Each structure stands twice: as C-alpha cells, then as structure tokens.
C-alpha cells in the first residue's frame, strides 16, 4: 500500500533524516500491509477502546498542594522570570 509519508510526517511533527527516509518508507508500507490482514476478521461488534468498562468517577473538589513552581520551571530548557521562553511563534512568512 502506498503511503504519503511526507503528509504523515507533517501531521506527526516529525522529519526523517536522509538515511531514515528510504528504509522507513519501505518498512511502513510493509507494516501497513501486514496490519491490513485485520480486514479478514469478521467483526460485527461494537468498538472497544479500553479493557475496563468504567464510567468517569466523580469526586469532591479538594485543594491539594501542587508541585512547587520553581522546581517545575527549573526543568524548562529556557526561561525568563516565571515564564518558559520559546522562539518566535509568528515568523512573518
């Protein structure tokens, strides 16, 4: 099965390196073909997304301590004051 790998890469926010491009594209085609055999299984059932049939549990709101702000900010690759800093969002293209 032919896959538009460039399109899928854009959706996934991923780029393949030059060395990765050919092998991954061939492997992806083989894998997609392999998983396609699922079409042969008769599935007249509903879909199951989780092993548990749970309904969301309701609970009272409780004020609980969160992680200290400075510990979490310390993990950020770049920061300014109490903010995480990122490169320009709009590049004017």
């Amino acid at each position: 099965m032919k896959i538009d790998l460039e399109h899928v890469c854009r959706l996934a926010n991923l780029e393949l390196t030059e060395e990765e491009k050919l092998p991954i594209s061939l492997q992806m085609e083989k894998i997609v073909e392999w998983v396609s055999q699922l079409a042969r299984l008769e599935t007249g059932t509903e879909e199951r997304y989780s092993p548990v049939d749970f309904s969301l549990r309701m609970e009272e709101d409780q004020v609980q301590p969160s992680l200290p702000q400075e510990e979490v900010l310390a993990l950020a690759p770049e920061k300014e004051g109490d903010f995480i800093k990122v490169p320009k969002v709009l590049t004017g293209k």
Partner: protein
Amino acid sequence: MNLVQLNLKEAVELVRKGELLAEDLVRAYVKHIESLDNRIKAYLTYNFDRALERAREIDRKPSKGKLAGAVIAVKDNIVTKGLRTTCASRLLENFIPPYDATVVERLEAEDAIIIGKTNLDEFAMGSSTENSAFFPTRNPWDLERVPGGSSGGSAAAVAAYEAMAALGSDTGGSVRQPAAFCGVVGLKPTYGRVSRYGLVAFASSLDQIGPLTRSVEDSALLTMVISGFDRRDATSSSEPVPDYMAKLGERLESKKVGVLAASELKGIEEEVAANYFAVVDKLKELGFEVEEMSFPSWEYALPCYYIIAPSEASSNLARYDGVRYGLRVEANSLAEMYLKTRTVGFGSEVKRRILLGTFALSSGYYEAFYAKAARARQVITREFTAAFEKVDFILTPTTPEPAFKLGEIQDPISMYLQDYFTVSASLAGVPAISIPSGLSSEGLPLGLQVIGRPFMEDKLLNFVFLLEKKLEFKNNISEIIKYQRKEEE
C-alpha cells in the same frame, strides 16, 4: 554465601527480625553490580549513595515496613523524584523528575530501597532492549544474546542478581517476554490493578506496571504492595487487594486448565512446543482437568495491537516538543523547534510507531485501521470471556523461541512477532504471568505464560506457585559467579 543470593522474601524477613542489616545487603549489591554490570549493562543510572543512606535509616527504625531492606531496580520509564529518568531516549537524557510514581512511593513507604534505574527499549517500544538510545543490555545466560524487552534491563538485573527484584512495564508483553528470556518470573497484573501515575505513557489503554522476581512468592509480595486504588490514575480500580502471600499454597478450588492444541503451535520453535507439552503432561499427572482450546482471533491480535498501540503512542508522545522539559533543539521559530527537537530526539523505532499511529488515525484511514482494530479488540476480549466460562487458567508458551542474538532480528515485523502469545492478554486487560519452565538444548531459559481472570491475581499466583515447585527450575547463579571470577582475574 553471598548476600545477593537471598530472595526478596528471605532477605526482608531477616532485616525485619533484626538479624541482617539493610546496609550490608545494599553494600553486597553495590559490590556485585560494580563487578558485573559493565558486562550485563542492565542499569542506566545507579542510585548507590542514596540507597546506602536509605538503608541506614531503615536499620535505625524500630518498626520496619513489609519490604524492609528489599533492593529493587526500577525500569527507567517510571519516574523517581530527584533521580534521572530517561526512558532510554535522547529526548529525556537529562530529565530529573520532580515527583515519584505511585508505585515508587508505595515501595518506599514499605522500606524498599531503589538501587538504580534499568535500561529499556526507547519509550518501551521493542522486544530486545536494542532500541535503547544508550546501549543494549546483555542476557546474563549468554552475553551474546538479548535479554528481551522492553523491560530487558529489569529482567537482566534480576537474573544476574544485580537486584532482588525489579519493576517493569508491560504494554504488549514487555514484562513477560524478558522474564522468559532471562529465566525469571514476570507478572502483568489486570489493567487497573496497579496505578500508572508516574509511568511515562506509551499506550494508555494497555500499559500496566508489573514485578520481575526470582520467585513466585516474591512476585506475590511485591504485587501486593504496589496494587490498589490511586485517585491520581483515572483508570485505577477500587477492587480490594487480597493478601496474595496468604493465599499461596492454599488448596486450589478448581483444576480446569485451558491449553493450546499442537496445531495452534505451528511455526514456533520445536523445543518451545516440546517444553510446553511436557508442562501440560505434568499438569495431567497432577490431576488437573486439561481442555484443549483454540483462539481463532489470536491470529489477528498482533495486527490489532500494532494499530492500537502506535495510535495511542502517536498521541501520548506529542508532548515531547522541547517546550517544558527534556531536549530542546534551538531554532528560529516555534514550529521549527518542535520539528527539530522531535526529529533529533526520537530514535527510528519510536519514529516508525508514531508515523504508523498517525497514519492509522488520519482522515480517510481511521475507519479501516483504528476503528477496525477497536472492534477486533472486542472480539478478542469476548473470546477470553467465553474461555473463562470453561476454565480457570489458560496456558501458552510465553515466546515463540528462546533469547535470540544481538543484531539477529533486523526486520521490524519479525521483531513484532515476538509478542505473538502475549498481546492478547494485554488487549483484553486480563492478568498474565510468565514463569521459567525449563532450558533449551543450548541452555537458554524457556517461559510458560499463564493467563487468568480479571482481578484474580491471587488464584493465578497460587496456581503458578504450585507449578514452580513441580517444574524445579534452577537459576544460573553458578554461571553468574563464573563471569564475576573472570572479571576479577
């Protein structure tokens, strides 16, 4: 005797009675790891200083917890406060979590000691631990071979006596398959039994944390401590946790076991099938009612799994964008930073799975792939429900073959086939355990998988406790000591 030879239950009993110091245990492990791990490479990060400090604190306590002095290794996709947690990925190479996973909190609350963080396939994606971004781990039974994966570091650490026991995570077989390859016991509990708060998410409808141990008893003890409701995991179950230890050795109420017919084992290594049928014969001798069963949907379980797990992974791994933590590759715009960070940070297998999942969820393909797989999952689940109306346990080999050599399997699909016997229980969310069942002609461990009913870990553990005694599997401590001597010479 070297202290590392004590099993978890034995060691804990001695520490609790005050007949053995936790500090001496930790020192014995540090010495053993330092002499051996340069060859096995089970660990990504050692926690020796803090472990010794913890041991001394525990030795001073007048009343000690259920796991006092237990020296535990933790798979490096389970977060540990202040201790580097990498997921064996360049993306998280320097990530130091600001909190502990619930399982780590529970272990430490019972006075267990974390000795280090173990290697894995990057983000738990793989069956050999060769996908670690740092280095592969070796199988302690044969250093040319893989320990299995993705919890390969945890399995190798336990088999090489570099830890009393370890935690792993299992999404499609990642605890059970390495347990089989390394000759240890590996349990994947029922989905919801153990909180995943602090387990780095791979496929959220499948991921489950489980113990790797040298005995069934140790598995029961650890499972008891880590199980139970946790409000921080929305899928965690409030089913009460029975005393798994107390149930061991109880008379089995029922003796109905489902086994696979020879025709269902076509295509797997002959020795594995022969070992499996030898166990089945033993069960018959022991008076079990053995029923041959077939599971027509299992043929589709792998394709189903390899749509669902990558789909969920593609969503879960979207968070690694270089903004808040982990690797950031500098760029001129935000969009370019996302792209470059992910491109540099993820290894090939992770990229393959993200792309596969993104494809299966994308417009035009969702119905044929993801929705179809979700329906197949229901078919597989119903097959289990029907089987458990007739039998109490289902037996399969854990893997189609014993441990393979490093570099031997290059093709992704051939690697995925490793999960043939393990994925069905993951998709259905039922508990499954692998115990060592013998050795191949080359002296490699073989594993037996036993699958049980949801939340019946007590019965499952009790059953394999009996089997363990009858199978009389011998560990490889003499071999391990041989490596060590070579190293010292």
